[in-house]
């Protein structure tokens, strides 16, 4: 793996193109920097910065109504901001595809991240979101492929959770 390759962003980008996703909504996270930069340099893809992650659920639903496929990229803490918003695609049985970089896991230097980090999966699952946890870069790629199929072929809500060890823990100098 070269310095310019994190082992998954290039491959996920290729799948974004392959799946026909032309809209990326995000409140950024350090672990998403490379993917968002690649997407932002493609004129066929619009990268939309949100004020809160919840907006991405609405934008994605509206885009789907109009025939456009989208992906919401967010940090795990942002998953807590979107819970009631998920009732929209859940009620409408419409796709909601998410890519989540995890905090509050192994190696986390900020204990304030633990509560939401622990809650992501049970809370998402309570809302009907299928969670695919990727513990390696290879799993990010394989899970993302599966997630695209689940979302756009089956109309599911699905999130790929990228483990903190894949993107590297924020240590706060510890």
């Amino acid at each position, binding site marked *: 793996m070269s310095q310019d390759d994190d082992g998954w962003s290039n491959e996920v980008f290729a799948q974004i193109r392959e799946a026909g996703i032309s*809209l990326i909504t995000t409140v950024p996270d350090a672990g998403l920097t490379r993917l968002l930069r690649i997407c932002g340099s493609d004129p066929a893809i*619009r990268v*939309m*910065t*949100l*004020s*809160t992650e*919840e*907006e*991405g*659920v*609405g*934008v*994605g*639903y*509206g*885009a*789907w*109504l*109009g*025939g*456009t496929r*989208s992906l919401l990229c967010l940090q795990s803490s942002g998953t807590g901001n979107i819970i*009631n*918003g998920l*009732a*929209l695609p859940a*009620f*409408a*049985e*419409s796709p909601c595809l998410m890519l989540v970089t995890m905090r509050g896991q192994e190696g986390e230097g900020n204990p304030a991240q633990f509560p939401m980090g622990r809650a992501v999966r049970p809370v998402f699952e309570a809302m009907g979101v299928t969670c695919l946890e990727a513990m390696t870069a290879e799993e990010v790629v394989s899970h993302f492929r599966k997630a695209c199929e689940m979302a756009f072929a089956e109309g599911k809500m699905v999130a790929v959770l990228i483990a903190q060890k894949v993107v590297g823990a924020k240590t706060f100098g510890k």
Partner: protein
Amino acid sequence: MGELHRRDVLGRVLEDRGGALVVPGLGTANYDLFSVSPSDDNAYMWNAMGLTVPTGLGLAIAQPDRRVLVVTGDGEMMMGIGSLSVVAAQAPENLSILVMDNEMFEETGAQTGLSAKHADIEKIAVGSGIEKTMTVRSDNEVARLSAFLLKERGPVLAVAKVAASRDDPIYPTMDGPGIVRTFRTSVLGAHEA
């Protein structure tokens, strides 16, 4: 609270709606839209308070050749107020927002809303970067509203200071997948729905 009759205002705005796609916020906006301009081009909303403008924004980006009108209330707008800065940043030329501002949470018992005395939604929109805005309070001003919302290059936002509803609600379908199927069939064709 304003004096305008909200269902009249919406009826006048949509009297000649052409190909406009309309996204109503949950609650009274949803019922008003179904009452005055029922159409397969309406994306009726029943939940997700705060996400009406984001939904309209996503739709406007997906359908750049169609006018997209978001109609919602002040409480719903306040909950998603940050989305106005996202709209300004994305600058969709085909997106319009109409806020029916009755200064209260009518659906839940007419509790006083944040726009009753302090929050000025038009000013917040301007401060968020939406350059074309207006607030209407009288019937004379409503005459300008339709052209502003359906013809002016977006993004635009209008606030209508309205009274509490005087009409009983008329409810659109509560079939969520059916709403999507009907809308997508109308907009994209049967093969996509």
